[in-house]
């Protein structure tokens, strides 16, 4: 093998590895960035899909199985702020900013799931 051919091969390997590394970094970064979508379910149907990454302040009202549930988004977080459920566990939960922490109003069969980046695969408690 002449020296020129060897140099070209090394150059090609280096170029390919560089492209692959850059592609991997871009892929990983874009996966992290496209995060935090809140899906609001009533029973098993998606009623609202909310992009939390816009960090907008908004109100949403969904009809649960026993009454209307008032949902509020603020600064990238989401909360149930009003519900006619007896325990008010969902309201007391406050704003949730990360995935794997669903907000559940069992009485109205409303639940909110945030999908996207999370530090853990699941949460206990």
């Amino acid at each position, binding site marked *: 093998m002449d020296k020129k051919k060897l140099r070209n*091969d090394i150059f*090609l*390997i280096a170029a*390919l*590895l560089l*492209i*692959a590394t850059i*592609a*991997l970094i871009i*892929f*990983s970064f874009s996966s992290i960035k496209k995060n935090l979508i809140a899906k609001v*379910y009533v*029973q*098993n149907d998606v009623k609202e899909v909310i992009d939390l990454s816009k960090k907008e302040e908004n109100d949403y009202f969904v009809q649960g199985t026993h009454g209307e549930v008032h949902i509020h988004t603020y600064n990238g977080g989401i909360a149930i702020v009003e519900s006619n459920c*007896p*325990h008010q*566990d969902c309201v007391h*939960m406050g704003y949730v900013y990360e995935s*794997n*922490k*669903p907000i*559940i109003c*069992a009485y109205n*069969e409303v*639940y909110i*799931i945030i999908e996207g980046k999370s*530090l*853990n*695969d*699941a*949460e*206990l*408690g």
Partner: protein
Amino acid sequence: MMKRLLLFIPLLTLISCSQTKIVNSKIFCFDTMININLYEGDSGNLKDIEGIFTRYDKLSDNYRSRDVHNVYTINHTNEEVVVDNGLYNLLNKAFSVKNEGAAYFDPLCGSLSKKWKESLEKGEVLSDEIINEELEKMHVSSIEFNENNKIKRLGEAEIDVGGIAKGYALDEVYTYLKNKDISHYLVNAGSSSILVGEKNNKSGLFSIGINDLTNAYIELKNCFVSTSGVSTQGVKINDVTYSHIINPVTGSAINNYDAVIVISDKGYLGDALSTSMMMNSVDEIKEIEEIQNVKTIVIKDKKIVYSNKDIEVKYH
């Protein structure tokens, strides 16, 4: 030319490594959200698993009648009831788990739990008079397991298997996945009972966050993890936190801890023990751990008061 083509292999490897096929589904069962993640298998497997949860949700319901004989049916008669094989076995486990260390797990505390729930909803502590009446009902009640899936409730106490049903359903899911040769999965039954398989990475470990401790997590694979606690359903009256977990011996709704986490190889056992251990002392918990081969974390006032030596709690 061949040599140059071979150079593309590392690139292809990198691209293929970044793609993981996951089939996922979320269903509302047991008054909570069930999140099923399979890293192998297909949508048919998801449907089968959803079917297991839906079935046990119906069978264990003690609040309303469904299209099958369920716990509600049994609670509303003293006649013999023919039940589904799944409910028969679930009830059998619920009534025998006391012998596996869950001394404070009593499925006959259904009406006492309901009375506490109604009282706490009004912001009131249940009176001693009602507690004693309910405890008396429990003492004189029992259940008969007869041949051909026949169940007979004796007495007035109501059955509640809510503390064990999700774990039992997870046991069925585990058996199903094992039979299908599926080992990469994470099935989260409402954050209180989780079936942990193997993750699609080198270690196979999943990171499981602990909500009662700030930024804490444990890394697990191939086990069941169950937790009971007061953080989401506790009610504070005059600075005392009352729980949905009732002590079946005293009738009290005050627990010793904020949360107990149990790592085990059986879902129903982990669920029952985590509930029962809320009333145990730490020394008793250590004893049960040894006998039942489970690992435990006990949390009070946002701190770990006991953790099994084989569990490493990490922090982000």
